[in-house]
C-alpha cells in the first residue's frame, strides 16, 4: 500500500510527535491514521481546548492539530494560550470552510497554518512539512535519519 515518505525530526531522527485536538472522536481517529501514515506519532489527544493546553504542557508535541469548534474552550483561544506559553508551538488549525474568520483570527494569534475539513492526507502532509520546515526531514522508507 502507498505510504508517505516518513517525516522525521532533524535533531534526533525520531518520529514527529503530534497532539490532536478535536471534540469528535471520529475526527481524531481519522487524523491519527493520517499521521501514522506520515511516520508520525500521536503524543496525545484532547477533546476540548482546556485539555489541549494541559496536554501540550505535558507532552510538548512537535505539532498540534487544532479543531476550531469545541466545548469548554474553542480552538482559537486554546491556540492563543499555547502560543503565549510556548512561542515555538506549531499549531495547525483544522476546520471547515464556514469558519474562515476564526482561522484568520487563529493565524493572527500565532497558529502556523490551517487545513480544511474534510482533511485530505496529501494536503495535510504538505502542510506538516511546511510547518516543520528545517526541523524535520523526509527520510527514505528505510527510516535513516536525514
Amino acid at each position: 500500500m502507498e505510504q508517505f515518505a516518513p517525516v522525521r525530526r532533524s535533531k534526533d531522527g525520531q518520529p514527529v510527535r503530534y497532539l490532536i485536538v478535536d471534540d469528535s472522536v471520529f475526527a481524531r481517529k481519522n487524523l491519527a491514521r493520517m499521521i501514522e501514515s506520515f511516520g508520525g506519532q500521536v503524543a496525545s489527544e484532547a477533546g476540548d481546548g482546556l485539555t489541549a493546553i494541559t496536554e501540550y504542557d505535558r507532552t510538548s508535541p512537535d505539532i498540534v492539530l487544532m479543531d476550531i469548534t469545541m466545548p469548554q474552550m474553542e480552538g482559537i483561544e486554546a491556540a492563543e494560550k499555547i502560543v503565549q506559553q510556548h512561542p515555538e508551538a506549531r499549531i495547525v488549525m483544522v476546520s471547515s470552510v464556514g469558519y474562515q474568520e476564526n482561522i484568520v483570527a487563529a493565524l493572527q494569534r500565532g497558529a502556523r497554518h490551517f487545513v480544511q475539513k474534510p482533511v485530505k492526507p496529501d494536503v495535510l502532509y504538505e502542510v506538516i512539512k511546511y510547518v516543520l520546515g528545517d526541523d524535520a526531514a523526509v527520510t527514505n522508507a528505510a527510516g535513516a535519519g536525514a
Partner: protein
Amino acid sequence: MSTGRDERMAELREIFFESAQELLQALNDEALKLEKEPGDAEIVRTIRRIVHTLKGDAAACGYRELSELAHDMEDVLALQTASAHTSLPQVAFTAADVFGAILTAYRRRVKVPSTEPLRKMIHAMAEYAGNVPAPKKKLAGNKTSRSKTPATRDSAGNRREESRVPARARLAAWNEYEKLAIQKALRQGKKLYHVLADIDLDCGMPIAGRQLVQVALSAIGEILAIRPEAGASQAERLVEFAVASDQTAEQIAARCQVPTVISKVTVGLIADATGAKDPNFAIPHPIATFTSESAAKLEHSPASQPLSESEDDQQPTTPSHMASLADNILRVDAERIDNVLNLVGELIIGKSMLQQTLNDFAKRFPKDHMRGKFADAMALQGRVLNDLQRSVMKIRMVPVEQLFRRFPRLIRDVGRQCGKQVELVISGQHTDLDKSILDAIAEPITHLIRNAVSHGIESAEERQRAGKSPNGTIRLQAYHQANQVVVEVRDDGQGINAERVKTRAVEQGMITAEAAAQLSESEILDLIFQPGLSTAEQITEVSGRGVGMDVVQSVLRRLKGTVEVETNPGRGTAFRLKLPLTLAIIKALLFRVEHRLYAIALSSVAEIARTIESEIHQVDNREILQLRNQVLPMVRLGRLPVGADHGSHKIFVLVITSGDKKFGLIVDQLEGEQELVIKALDDHAISTDLVSGASIMGDGRVVMILNLSAVVEHFSRSRFKSSGVLGSGMLLSHEERSPLGPIDRGAQA
C-alpha cells in the same frame, strides 16, 4: 482498491456510526434544553457545534447527503434571527430524526429516506431570517465536486495560469498613507518588493490563505500595504503586497510558497535605495516566480484518487495504527468477552473440583503436611480467580446513563401526544450494569415511562384540582441495593386503583371472587402483570396501567430480576426493577429436596431457620410458620412426610425475599454456599419454568437453579384457584405427585 483499505474504511465507518449516534443523542438533549429556554444563545451554539461535527465526520466518510444537509442546517443556525426562532427546537428534533434515519439507511446500505421535511424547515427558517442558504449550498456542492474530480484538477493548473495572466500585471494604487510608509522604508535603505500571490483554487478559505501569506511575509520583512485591503469580504484569489525586506526576491518567494494554499507567487523588486524614488512605480519585472510545485505533486499522489465514491480521508497506515491511538479505547465484540466470561466460569467449576478433591485428601490424610500447602495455593488461586471474574464482569458493565439518555425525548414526545407537561428527573445515572441486562430492560422501561406519562399522570386541570403542580414529574433512578441494581420509575400521578384492578380480574375470570377477597393489596397489584389483564384498552379505564405489563414481567423474569409496584392513590406509582449485576455467575445456596440438588441466589435468602414439621400450621388454606413475631407463608417444595411421627420430622426453612414478598421455602437438607456458573437450559431440556438454569458442581453433580419469581407466581396462582393443596410438592414430577401427594392433609384443612 485493495481489501485492506476497504476494511479500514469499514472500520472507520463503524466508528463514525457510533460517534454519530452520540451526536444525535446530544442534539436531542440540547433541543430539549432549548425548548425549556428558548433563544438561549449558548444552547444554539452547542447545537450548531454538534451539527458541524456531524457534517465534518459525514463528509470525511463520503456521506454527501448527510453532510450537505448538516451544512445547510449549520448555516441557518449561524443566522442571528433564525437562532432566536421559536420553532428551532422542533427543527432540531426533526433534524435528529432525519439524520438518524439517514444514518440507518447508510448502515443498511439502502436508499436514503426523504429529507424534504427537514429541508423545508431549514428553508423556512432561512427565509424568515431573510437569507436563503440555497445558493450557498450550491456553491459548496460545486466546490466539492470540483476538487473531487481528478480530471478537472489535472487541467486546473493550466487553466488557472491562463485566467490569471491579465491580472498578474495588476499593480495596486496605494493610498497616501501607504505611499508615505513606502517612501520612509526606501529612505531607510530597504529593498521594496511587490509580491503577487495566487491563492490555490482548491483552497476553500482564501481569506485565511491570505492571512497565512501575510504571517509568512511579516516574518521576513515589513508589510507596507496589502490589496485587497484587510476586511474585504470577497474571496479574492489574487493578493498583492508591498513588502520592505532585506532578503532576496527568491527568499521571499520561497517564503510565500505555502503549500496547499498558494499556487503561484511572483516577486518583483519595485525599487531599492538607489532606484526610482517615485512611489507610483512602474510595473516591476517579475524576477522570481514560483508556481506551486505541490500542486503538481498532488496529481500523482495516490491519495487524490477517489476512494469508492467518497471524499477520501483515509491513508494507508501501518497495521499498528489502532494500538498507538492515545485514548486507549478498545472496541471489542461482546461475544469475545462472553467467551472469556465463559472460560472464567469453567475455571470456577475447576476450582470447586479442586476444592472437593482437596477435602477428600484432607479426610484421607488428616496429618499430611501437604494439606496446608494445598490450602494456601487454593486460597491464592481463589483470590486471583475472584479478581479475574470481577475484571471480566467490569468489562461488560456500562453506566445506565446510556439508556437513560433516551428518555427525555420520549417523555417530551409522549407528553405532547397526551397534551401533558411532564418533567423527568434522573438520578444515579452512573450506576453500572451489565450491558446485556441494560439492553434487555430498555423496552420494559420505555413501556413503564410511556404508561406513566399517558395513564399515570393526570391532565393539568385534574392535577390542579387535586392540589398538585400542573406539571407531572417522573423520576427515573438507579441505585445499588445489596447485590442488585434497582432501577426505579416513579411518577406523581393518580396511582393505581386496586379495587378496580380486582373487579376487572374477577370479571375476566382470572380469579374467583372468593380468592380475590383474600388477596392483599400487593397481591392485587401483582395482577396487573398477568397477561390477561394487560391486553385491551379497558386497562386504561380500570387502572390507567397495564398495557404490556406482562412483557415487563417476563423480561425481568428472564433476567432473574424482579419487579415491584408501589402505589399511593392520588400520589403516584413507583415501579422498581431489581436486577442482578450480571447474568452469568451467582452466589448460591444449595439445598436438597427429595434427594435432588437445587440452588437459589444467596442474595434472595434473608434467613435460614430450623424447625420441625409440627410447627407448620395450616391457616386459611395455606401453610404458615410463626417465626419469632412474624407469620410466614410457606412454600413446600417436596412432599409431606408420612407416618405417625411426621410431626417431629426436622426441616429447614429458607426465608426468602422476592420483590416485596417474604415467604419460607421448606427444604429437606442444606448443602452449603457456592459460586455457580449458570448454564442456560434449552426450552426442550426442561418442561417447567420453575427452574431457570443449571450448573455443574466440582464433583460433577448437576444442580438446578430455582427461578424464584416463577415459584412465587406458581404459589400465588395455585391459591387463586383454591385448588386445595398449597404449593406443596411443587418440585415433584408428575408421577411422584399423584400416588403419594399430600392429599389427606390438604383435605383436612
